[in-house]
């Protein structure tokens, strides 16, 4: 085990105001069980879970209330005992509609209610790889860094691909957020255990723990926890630069490998990147039999009375989190689920947290810039800031007149939507949003083409059948 400085620096990147001091020093606090939970069926990337309960049902803590619906999907378990008040379509933080199960946790359970399901604690050193993967899957674990990719899928590389490096993402480059930082400080032994389990699952890859240089305490905590570990394990100290936490850039910064364009994945260059929080959750799921029902969320922002790092069950309504942190000191002008660079502005505090809600920010009017954008002056700041080395100016200009083809030719599909371009734009253009618009319309077009091809094939087949 040694600590090294990152030898590879990617091009681009920006330095936003981090504002981490607001919540950095607050130890993780557990939220008392809220009266009502709004548990979304779409807490992860991929197909939303299929809801198994209906209004009036009683649910137990840990009970599966949404089953995995597809290969890229994870199950959803109830975070608490209670009665289902309703199952309804709700807008999630990211703006998409999904089924949400509203659970009244104050309802008293009937006497004949089944006992809560129990996952038996496992001895990871004697368990087989398949057993461990099965546990990770049934615990409902997905990436907790933000995207929410199902972890069991990620830890099970397709045949022919081998994981050579396990990269632990502790960069937490998003402003305001300190949840991962606190987990690294307070739960270092769990992370160590999780890493050992993942190494076993992945076939003993080398381990790189990536932490930005502005978190010396976290580096020290990880050094202490991993001091006596066997094998090729390094803590890589990354320069402070946004978006250091991006998967591709982290792989480059730690291992020096470059992930090719989509649809290539990190595993194509022999790497698996996992967030530190996810690793701790894996340890809990295997060793304690504790499914992923709660997570640490940073509640911060200048409109919050006492910013905190809160351990809250998923489905906790934003309003409850705000109340736990002393309420708002003034009317927040903007509420953001996630960090300021990639988080989602939300329209209501009734939305429930998910497995990927790393932060909840309440910003006052002073911290909110409302832009009226001007014409692009071609200054090239976005080009220099883009960590993917794209030409965001060109994309935004093209998308302003709905010229999707030009945007596609400018490789907009490589865009990671980190927001570095918009951050520095002197004309206050919504470049990232234009990129998102381009990506969405290209995805829609591809989906339509696929559907049309499938329909043509089907009708072709039907016609042939008829002919026969």
């Amino acid at each position, binding site marked *: 085990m040694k600590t090294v400085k990152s030898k590879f620096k990617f091009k681009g990147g920006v330095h936003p105001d981090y504002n981490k001091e607001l919540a950095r020093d607050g130890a993780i606090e557990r939220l008392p069980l809220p009266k009502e939970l709004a548990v979304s069926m779409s807490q992860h990337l991929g197909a939303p879970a299929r809801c198994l309960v209906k209004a009036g049902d009683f649910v137990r803590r840990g009970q599966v209330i949404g089953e995995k619906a597809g290969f890229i999907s994870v199950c959803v378990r109830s975070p608490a005992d209670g009665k289902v008040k309703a199952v309804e379509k709700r807008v999630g933080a990211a703006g998409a509609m999904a089924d949400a199960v509203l659970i009244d946790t104050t309802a008293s359970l009937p006497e004949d209610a089944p006992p809560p399901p129990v996952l038996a604690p496992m001895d990871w050193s004697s368990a087989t790889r398949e057993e461990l993967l099965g546990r990770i899957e049934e615990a409902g674990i997905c990436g907790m860094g933000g995207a929410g990719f199902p972890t069991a899928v990620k830890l099970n590389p397709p045949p022919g691909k081998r994981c050579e490096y396990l990269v632990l993402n502790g960069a937490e480059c998003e402003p305001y957020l300190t949840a991962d930082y606190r987990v690294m400080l307070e739960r270092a032994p769990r992370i160590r255990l999780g890493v050992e389990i993942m190494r076993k699952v992945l076939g003993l890859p080398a381990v790189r723990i990536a932490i930005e240089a502005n978190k010396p305490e976290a580096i020290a905590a990880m050094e202490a926890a991993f001091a006596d570990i066997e094998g090729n394990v390094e803590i890589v100290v990354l320069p402070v630069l946004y978006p250091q936490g991006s998967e591709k850039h982290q792989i480059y910064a730690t291992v020096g490998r470059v992930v090719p364009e989509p649809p290539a994945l990190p595993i194509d260059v022999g790497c698996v990147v996992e967030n530190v929080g996810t690793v701790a959750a894996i340890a809990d799921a295997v060793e304690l039999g504790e499914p992923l029902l709660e997570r640490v969320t940073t509640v911060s922002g200048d409109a919050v009375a006492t910013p905190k790092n809160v351990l809250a069950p998923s489905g906790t309504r934003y309003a409850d989190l705000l109340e736990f942190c002393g309420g708002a000191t003034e009317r927040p002008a903007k509420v953001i689920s996630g960090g300021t660079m990639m988080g989602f502005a939300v329209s209501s505090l009734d939305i429930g947290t998910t497995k990927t809600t790393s932060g909840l920010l309440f910003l006052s009017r002073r911290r909110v810039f409302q832009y009226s954008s001007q014409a692009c002056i071609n200054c090239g700041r976005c080009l220099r800031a883009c960590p993917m080395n794209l030409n965001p100016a060109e994309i935004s200009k*093209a998308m302003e*007149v709905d*010229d999707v083809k030009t945007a596609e030719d400018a490789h907009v599909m490589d865009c990671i939507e980190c927001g570095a371009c918009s951050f520095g734009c002197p004309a206050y253009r919504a470049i990232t949003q234009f990129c998102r618009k381009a990506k969405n319309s290209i995805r829609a077009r591809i989906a339509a083409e696929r559907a049309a091809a499938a329909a043509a094939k089907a009708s072709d087949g039907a016609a042939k059948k008829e002919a026969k």
Partner: protein
Amino acid sequence: MRAMSYYLMILVGAVLVNNFVLSRFLGCCPFLGVSKKTETALGMSGAVVFVMTIASAVTWCLDHWLLAPNNLGYIHTLAFILVIASLVQFIDIAMKRFLPPLHAALGIFLPLITTNCAVLGAAEINCKQGTGFFEAVFFSFSAALGFGFALVIFSGIREKLAHADPPRCFRGIALALVTGGLLSLAFMGFSGLVKLPY
């Protein structure tokens, strides 16, 4: 060596100094019509280079072997138009057969070369200057290159302008004409670069 520098002078003169579009204002129709996309502009440039070189060769022969010996110089414009028009039709048919993608890209603009004053202009200039065959063909080739050069540059600007937001009354051709004027202004900088009669 001297011949080479002479031909270089012809080339520079026809491409930069007396550019057909930007200085002689010939061939404005395809210049405005086919300059919305650089790919199309490149195709059109290729077509013009091809047509102009062949047309000047044919018209030179026509002028020197048929018209001049019979003292028919006064009908050369008429004869040239006839020959050029049928030549372009022929190329149109052949291109449709052998290069369908290029034909599709040039679309309704290929027949424009039929009535393109640049082609006729090159033939006329050759006729008036009384140059030799190779000089005449090379001049036409250079002039067509100059036309293509201007067209490709202009198409680049127009692609950029497609993302601009001009006042409504200037959208489309009006803006293209203003841009062409400014481009012509910029090319004034080349004036005097070579001192040749044409």
